C-alpha cells in the first residue's frame, strides 16, 4: 500500500511539473509540424511524391523531435537532488527508471501520438495506412522512451558532448524504423511485424531498468 502511495505521489509530481512546463511539450509538437512544412517545401507540393514517402517522413521527424527533449529526462531531477530523495524514500534506481519511462511516454510521446492524424492530413496519407502508422508508433514510441531513458542516464555526467545521447537513441532505433515502416509497405504481414516490434519492446523494457539504474547509481555516487 505504501509503495502505491509513493507511485501515485510520483506521478502527481510529474503531472504538476509537466503542467507548469507545458510550453516545452508544445514546442516539441511545433518543431514536428514546422519540420513537416520544411520537408514539403524542399520536395515540392506534388501529391503523389508526398504520399509515397509520407510515412517515412513522419517516422523520421517523430524520432528526431522526441530525441530533442531527452536532456530533460533525468537532468533536472539529478541537479536539484530529487533523484536522491526518491531513492532515500525507498524506490530503487531501476524502479525509478521504469516510472520515469512511463512518465516520459505519457507526457512526451502521447501528444505526438495525438498529433499524428493532423500530420497525416498534411502529408496526404491514406486512412488505412494511418491505422498502421498509429499502431506502429504506439509500440515504437514506448521503445523510444526506454532507449531515451538508457541514453540520458548514461550522459548525466557528460559535461562536454550533449548530442551523444541523441546519437545513441538514433543508432539503436534503426531496427524499429525498419519494421514500423515495413508494416505499411507489407500490409499482409501486419501481424508478424507487430509481433517483432512487440518483441523488441519486451527486450528493451527488460534491459532498461538494469542499464539506466546502474548509470543513475554511478552518477549519484560519483557526483
Amino acid at each position: 500500500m505504501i509503495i502505491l502511495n509513493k507511485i501515485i505521489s510520483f506521478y502527481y509530481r510529474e503531472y504538476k511539473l509537466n503542467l507548469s512546463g507545458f510550453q516545452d511539450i508544445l514546442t516539441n509538437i511545433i518543431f514536428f509540424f514546422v519540420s513537416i512544412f520544411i520537408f514539403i517545401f524542399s520536395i515540392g507540393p506534388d501529391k503523389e511524391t508526398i504520399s509515397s514517402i509520407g510515412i517515412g517522413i513522419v517516422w523520421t521527424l517523430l524520432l528526431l523531435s522526441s530525441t530533442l527533449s531527452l536532456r530533460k529526462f533525468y537532468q533536472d531531477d539529478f541537479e536539484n537532488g530529487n533523484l536522491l530523495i526518491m531513492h532515500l524514500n525507498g524506490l530503487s534506481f531501476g524502479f525509478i527508471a521504469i516510472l520515469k519511462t512511463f512518465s516520459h511516454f505519457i507526457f512526451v510521446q502521447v501528444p505526438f501520438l495525438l498529433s499524428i492524424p493532423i500530420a497525416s492530413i498534411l502529408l496526404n496519407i491514406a486512412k488505412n495506412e494511418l491505422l498502421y502508422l498509429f499502431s506502429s508508433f504506439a509500440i515504437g514510441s514506448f521503445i523510444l522512451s526506454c532507449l531515451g531513458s538508457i541514453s540520458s542516464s548514461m550522459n548525466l555526467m557528460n559535461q562536454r558532448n550533449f548530442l551523444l545521447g541523441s546519437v545513441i537513441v538514433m543508432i539503436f532505433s534503426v531496427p524499429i524504423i525498419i519494421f514500423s515502416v515495413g508494416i505499411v509497405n507489407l500490409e499482409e504481414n501486419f501481424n508478424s511485424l507487430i509481433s517483432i516490434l512487440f518483441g523488441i519492446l519486451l527486450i528493451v523494457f527488460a534491459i532498461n531498468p538494469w542499464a539506466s539504474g546502474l548509470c543513475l547509481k554511478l552518477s549519484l555516487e560519483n557526483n
Partner: protein
Amino acid sequence: MMFLVNPSKFNKVADYVFLPVLISSIILFSIGLIFVFYLSPDDYQQGSTVRIMYVHVPSAWLALLTYAIMTLYSIAGLAFRIPFGFIINTAVAPIGAVFTLICIISGSLWGKPMWGTWWVWDARLTSVAILFIIYLIIIFMNLSFENRIIREKVVAIFVLVGSINLPIVKFSVDWWNTLHQPATISKLSKPSIDPSMMIPLIIMTFAFIMVGLTIAILRIKTEIISRKSNLS
C-alpha cells in the same frame, strides 16, 4: 593465464611477447602479400579483383572479433570487478574502428567493379556501418567524460547494450535475401573455397591478427601507465 586479467602480469608477459609478435607480423604480412599478388590464382569470373578479398575478409573478421573481446571484458569488468576489463575497452576500441573502416572501404572498392555501385542498402552493409558508428560512439564517450570511474563503467554498459548488433551482423546474410553473399568459410559444413585461395586468406588473417595484437599491446601498456600516473 592470469596475465589476461592482471595489469602487472600483463606488462611482464607483454615485454616478452612484443618483439616476437612484431617480427612475426612483418614476416607474415610479407609472405601473405607475396601469396596474394603472385601465387594465388585469378578468379574465373572476377578476374584480378578477387584479391581484394584477402584484405576485406580478415578485417571484417577482426572487426567482429574485437567487439566480441570488448564485450567479454565488459562483462568481466562490470560483473567480476576486474579493472583490467575497462583498460582493454579503452585501448582496443580505436583498433576495431580502424578494422571496420578498412572492411567498409575495401568492400566498396570491390563492389564498384562487381556490383556496379559503391554502396547498396543491403542488410550486411548497413549492420557493419552501424557497427562502425557504435565504435565511434565508444571512442567519443571515452573522450567526453571527465570522471574516469563513471566513464569506464558507462562505456562498458554501452558496449554490452551495443553487442546486440553482433549476431545481426553475423546472420544478416542468412536472415534477409540480399546482395552480399552468405558465409563461405565460417559455417558448419566444409568451406566452399578452393585451397589455393584458402591458404593466402589464412596467412593474411594471421598477419592481420598479429598487426592488431602489436598495436593492442602498445595501447594497453600506454593505458596502464597513464592510469598509474592518474593522467586520465
